[in-house]
């Protein structure tokens, strides 16, 4: 399983990617939407884990671009917020919607489920 992790919180993204790697998941980490687009053009990811609120290209817009590039790719949203509107949009647009702080085991479980 190969996944793309996009979050502007660099330290968080790095830590999370290290933990996922330890659990045998192939993770690429980028910190902006632009880099995410570039990476998707080059690699074929099974799942993209996107932060909803990011400077530049936001999570929702980024998701559409990535799907355009790879329609098979599944999307999981992450958010530090949790407003109803975020939740509605997130649920409609993505396979799953998770709020921070995450439970690593739950993320792993969801990743496997989404890929199946």
């Amino acid at each position, binding site marked *: 399983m190969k996944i793309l992790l996009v979050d502007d*919180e660099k*330290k*968080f993204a790095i*830590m*999370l990617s*290290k*933990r996922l790697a*330890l*659990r045998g998941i192939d993770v690429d980490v980028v910190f902006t939407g632009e880099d995410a687009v570039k990476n998707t053009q080059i690699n074929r990811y099974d799942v993209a884990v996107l932060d909803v609120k990011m400077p530049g290209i936001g999570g929702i817009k980024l998701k559409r671009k990535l799907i355009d590039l790879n329609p098979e790719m599944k999307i999981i949203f992450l958010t*530090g*917020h*949790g*407003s*109803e*509107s975020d*939740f*509605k949009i997130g649920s409609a647009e993505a396979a799953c919607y998770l*709020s*921070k*702080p*995450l*439970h*690593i085991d739950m993320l792993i479980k969801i990743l496997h489920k989404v890929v199946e």
Partner: protein
Amino acid sequence: MTGNFRSILKLLRPDFYHQMDGHLNPYFTFANYNKIWTVGILVLALTALVPLITVTGIHYQLIQKSVDSELLLRTERLTSNARRAVTFFLEERLNALRFTVNEIEYTQLTNPAHLSDVLRNIKLGFGGLSDLSVISPTGAQVAYAGPYNIEGKNYSDQHWFIECRKNNYYVSEIFRGYRNVPHIIIAVKSFRADNTFFILRATLETERLIQTVISYETGKHADIFLVNRAGIIQTPSKHHGSIFEKMALLPALKYSPRTQTIMASDGQGQKIVGYAFISTPIADTPFILMVIKQKEGMMGVWEDLFSSISWFVALCVMAILIVVTITCTFMVNKMFLADKAKAETLALVEQNNQLASVGQLAAGVAHEINNPLALINETAGYIKDLFTIAETYHQDDELMENIDSILEAVERCGRITGQLLGFARKFDIKIENINLKEIISDILLFHNKEAEYRNIKVNVDMPEGNIEIESDRGKLQQILLNLVNNAFQAMNEGCRLDIIAKRKGLDSVVITICDNGCGMPEDTLPKIFEPFFSTKERGVGTGLGLAITSGLIKKLHGDISVKSKQDEGTTFTITLPIHTKEELRDNENSLGGR
């Protein structure tokens, strides 16, 4: 007995009498309803009573004045009549003497036998005379006819003789004289052919005069008698002294040719005094006729009337006071209840505003905290991973324990921020048809194991069968879950939880969640729906659970109330509408379009 009296008194006491709920006080329009009530009763009672009492007072004065003038008039009439009788009595006898001296020759009059005949004839014609005597110009008694042996007396120095010689006629006051018996003398001067004069004198029987006066006495409160001009009593008086005594407390009497009436008072009360100076057309007399009536005694009828009026007025005053009190109590109570309802609404609005502000704040704080929290979580998690998964470092139990407590703390923080965000989210809703039995069963699934383990009996009762309502499933789940969680936290082993749902009217459903757990102290009950208020141990509860629950229920147009007793248990009662109102549906549509 005292208990009964107290319970009746409690029943009569209006709502506003009891101390107002402390937390509602700032929202009341008027601070002191007892004062409004008192002032209201005073103003209303005065408005009604002052005119009544004033008119009654004026009426009383008028009646008293007219009674006074009536009494004066009656006394004047009586005095006047009695005066005419006494005047006529004296005048008649003076005229008899005048007739005698004009008709009968002096020589015949001085003949004692003839004088006795004349006395007898006058007695027969007029009566009231006891003797007759003829007096010469020197004052010597020339002839006498009568029962007393006073022949040969000389009267030249006597007052009556001097007066008669001067004025031709004389009427004496009552005096004892030589014979030492009370009598009146009347005398007439006449001239003989040789131009010398003589005086014919007669003694009057006082008894006849007394009877004439007394015959005018009416009732026990009236006293009628004669006095002389010096105030010495001449005929018997009932209340004002004996004969020849000075009249007690004589009012200063001014001479008047007419009958006079005045009001006077002495130590024994007010008196109506009528008096008349007795004077015949022939001669003046020393007599004053006195009629004295005790006013108190004459007022009997008037006093009865006054007493009836007073009773009537007193009853009216009582009736007015009762009606005013009842009306005022009713009005002020209505006003108080309306104000209380308003105050409760204001307090609720204020609380909702507070909740909304807290919601905004909570969302902001939660958002800001969640990102660093996520970093701590991942970093600590990574360190743990290094030990457990990568095995880069050797197993160190103490370090692991510390990392676990960091992760645990993060999880707890996450729960708090989650709740805070939930609190902020409470204003959005989504309406669907919900089966109450299902939703309650779903909630209880979470607690099945716990109930079994702790030997807690859970009983769900829907006496009218299943109920379907239109509501927001998520919110309703959260509400029920919060309340059931609270109940489980409050219960000890072997306790019992009852969840009862039934219809209330056509439009509502009432869900009661009743436990017999530890309960809450009564003084905390008004505060339990306030945010950040918790009865649980520090660090265990956030104080937001019931605030959120209450906010959610209000949002669903429902209502929540609580009853609790320490060590006996707690009952939460939720009322929810069965059908959702239009505005909620509109709200949902607008959210959907966002």
